[in-house]
């Protein structure tokens, strides 16, 4: 069998049904073999978007996303997307073509050392040197990407290897990764110590991160919080890990979180951190208190424990779902009624501000998201880009019931949302020719800055008639950086943050054969969305926001 065929067979065996890719010289054999494969190939418009498609696909389907690019520039274009997936722990396998084996190291045409370039932000990578190893490498890559703390794995395959003829190759070989053994079960001694700490605590708080969603621990988290009456705060990545209409919900922590959530964190005497990294942004406002309060840190990645917060009283290395299930077995008899009253007080006393005075007759994004929540269904998927739009969406669109929210939280990659939403649409089956009733409501939110970073992908969205709404908050500025300039250097200290060009979204939508609406105010935006959600297919809504609405 040709190695190129073998690669696709092995991918099929890993249940891969969709690949987001872009061909090139070093991938000619693989693309030739793809003609006979059951795997669907989606031709992206720039390799930079391919890992984001795969990421959105993975986040919805729960499977490992796959992206593909040719050698050299194709491969280097994947770099940001791979790093984005790494920082958000998204299971991803990136496959790259490479120049012929005998040309490696000669600076050949379209040669780039992609395993070297991606080494800091891949979980592991392979350069295939023997076609016989393909089954083992692909099996290992998918295993590594999807188990433990998920992440991207890269497989670099030279062109001549793809053309090799392999005979009698073992299709299901044993994996050879003795150094890879993620620990799922929490240490019983540490769990006992955690129980003691929780019992002793007067003001405990749960800090839930993205890992709760990755390990599907939402139910266990809810039961654990309810059973012991402990308030739950999430990180940006943890949004959706806990229902936001629950009485124990205490908001989003961090430099862009709610002020009251940071205040709650400040007063806690015990922080039970579940699968969060306690990143610099996450604990920016409360670092001192977290150092002062006692900390139980549950994470499947031992290196996260003690990395950002030096003193961890109880480290528990393990899977969030399994550890929470263990903790649920014990009756802790916690009495937190006083503390919960205090948390409610903080929630009331430190209100969320809506700044109606800043609207200037245009859309108030915060009120818009509140209103959007009334319109949208119980299982809506909302994907935010990076910038002001991201924080508005994260804080003002409540994730309740089966809703899902995600964004590029760790790396903060602008341009993430459009390809990620397209990948999500493929995973949801929101494609042309299928019933609207069977589609899940899908919204992507971006600014006019982030929109322009990925707008080439509109072609794919239009081509497949992906059923999704693209909300573009247009203020003609790079809002978040502009706000930082304002806050750091003072009024009018703006530099390089004016987009300075009046992009005609209507013509653009027309060029891509997309439905288009324009909304100048909050009410208009909500009305437009009501119409858009009736349409089976992609819609762009251009939403005007005043350039000085800089509050997040």
């Amino acid at each position: 069998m040709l190695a190129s065929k073998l690669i696709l067979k092995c991918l099929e065996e890993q249940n891969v049904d969709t690949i987001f890719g872009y061909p090139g010289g070093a991938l000619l054999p693989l693309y030739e073999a793809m003609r006979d494969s059951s795997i669907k190939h989606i031709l992206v418009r720039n390799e930079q978007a391919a890992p984001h498609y795969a990421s959105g696909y993975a986040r919805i389907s729960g499977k490992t996303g796959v992206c593909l690019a040719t050698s050299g520039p194709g491969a280097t274009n994947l770099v940001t997307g791979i790093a984005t997936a790494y920082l958000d722990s998204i299971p991803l396998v990136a496959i790259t073509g490479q120049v012929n084996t005998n040309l490696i190291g000669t600076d050949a045409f379209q040669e780039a050392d992609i395993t070297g370039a991606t080494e800091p932000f891949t979980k592991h990578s392979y350069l295939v040197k023997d076609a016989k190893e393909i089954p083992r490498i692909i099996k290992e890559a998918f295993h590594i990407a999807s188990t433990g703390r998920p992440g991207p794995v890269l497989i670099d395959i030279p062109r001549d290897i793809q053309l090799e003829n392999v005979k009698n190759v073992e299709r299901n070989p044993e994996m050879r990764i003795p150094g890879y053994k993620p620990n799922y079960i929490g240490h019983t001694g540490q769990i006992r110590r955690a129980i003691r700490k929780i019992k002793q605590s007067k003001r405990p708080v749960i800090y839930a991160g993205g890992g709760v969603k990755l390990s599907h621990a939402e139910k266990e988290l809810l039961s654990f919080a309810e059973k012991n009456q402990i308030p739950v705060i999430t990180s940006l990545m943890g949004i959706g890990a806990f229902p936001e209409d629950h009485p124990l919900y205490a908001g989003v922590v961090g430099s862009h979180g709610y002020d009251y959530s940071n205040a709650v964190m400040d007063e806690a005497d015990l922080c039970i951190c579940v699968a969060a990294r306690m990143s610099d942004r996450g604990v920016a406002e409360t670092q001192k208190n977290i150092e002062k309060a006692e900390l139980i840190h549950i994470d499947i990645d031992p290196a996260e424990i003690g990395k950002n917060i030096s003193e961890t009283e109880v480290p528990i290395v393990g899977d969030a779902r399994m550890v929470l299930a263990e903790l649920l077995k014990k009756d802790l008899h916690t009495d937190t009624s006083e503390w919960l009253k205090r948390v409610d007080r903080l929630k009331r006393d430190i209100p969320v501000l809506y700044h109606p005075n800043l609207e200037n007759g245009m859309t108030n994004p915060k009120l818009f998201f509140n209103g959007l929540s009334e319109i949208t269904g119980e299982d809506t998927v909302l994907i935010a880009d990076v910038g002001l739009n991201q924080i508005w969406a994260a804080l003002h669109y409540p994730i309740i019931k089966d809703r899902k929210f995600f964004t590029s939280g760790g790396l903060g990659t602008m341009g993430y949302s459009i390809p990620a939403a397209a990948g999500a649409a493929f995973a949801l089956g929101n494609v042309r020719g299928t019933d609207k009733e069977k589609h899940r409501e899908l919204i992507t939110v971006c600014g006019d800055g982030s929109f322009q970073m990925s707008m080439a992908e509109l072609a794919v969205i239009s081509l497949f008639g992906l059923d999704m709404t693209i909300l573009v908050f247009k203020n003609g500025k790079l809002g978040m950086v502009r706000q930082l300039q304002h806050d750091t250097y003072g009024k009018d200290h703006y530099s390089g943050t004016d987009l300075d060009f009046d992009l005609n979204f209507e013509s653009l939508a027309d060029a891509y054969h997309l439905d288009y609406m324009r909304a100048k105010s909050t009410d208009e935006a909500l009305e437009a969305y009501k119409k858009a959600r009736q349409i089976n297919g992609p819609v762009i809504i251009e939403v005007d926001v005043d350039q000085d609405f800089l509050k997040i």
Partner: protein
Amino acid sequence: MEHLKDTNSRRVLSLLVANNAGTLSRVSGLFSRRGYNIDALTVGTTEDEQISRMTITLSGDDAVLEQIIKQLYKLVDVIKIVELEKGSSLRRELVYIKVKANDETRSKIVNICNLFRANVVDVAPESLVLEIVGPGSKIEAFFDMIKPFGIIEFVRSGVTGLQRGKTHVAPAKKKLSMPED
């Protein structure tokens, strides 16, 4: 020679790693990327051809060392890590020193070499090359004695070592406990 002192913060790790292309760059890259100080790194084959052994000398306190070990373990190629602690391990380094020598000083230098069980491995009219193997403290003392004669250049192999007695760094048995679904 302050930088050569075997201070308390100097630690030695012994790693068993998969003998793959790229393993060395993954390990060394991790140190530079995360801002850890690495003093020396040696790598060589083991009794198992699929596994290599690295000995890394680095400086840092317990917290730093713990984080380094955890980060190293995240590398799929890293199979096992132990710290080679002073009392319970053999830690040796090979050093070549090229020192100025003339008819007057040559015999003095040779005498010092004899005291330290160092060898003279090259003799030239105006220089000698000395070879010494030993733990950090011995090498440090030897340097102090040789320095007044005028060191032209030297090379250090970096520490390599093994645990004493029966203990050995065996690859860990695979223990994969998956969540039940």
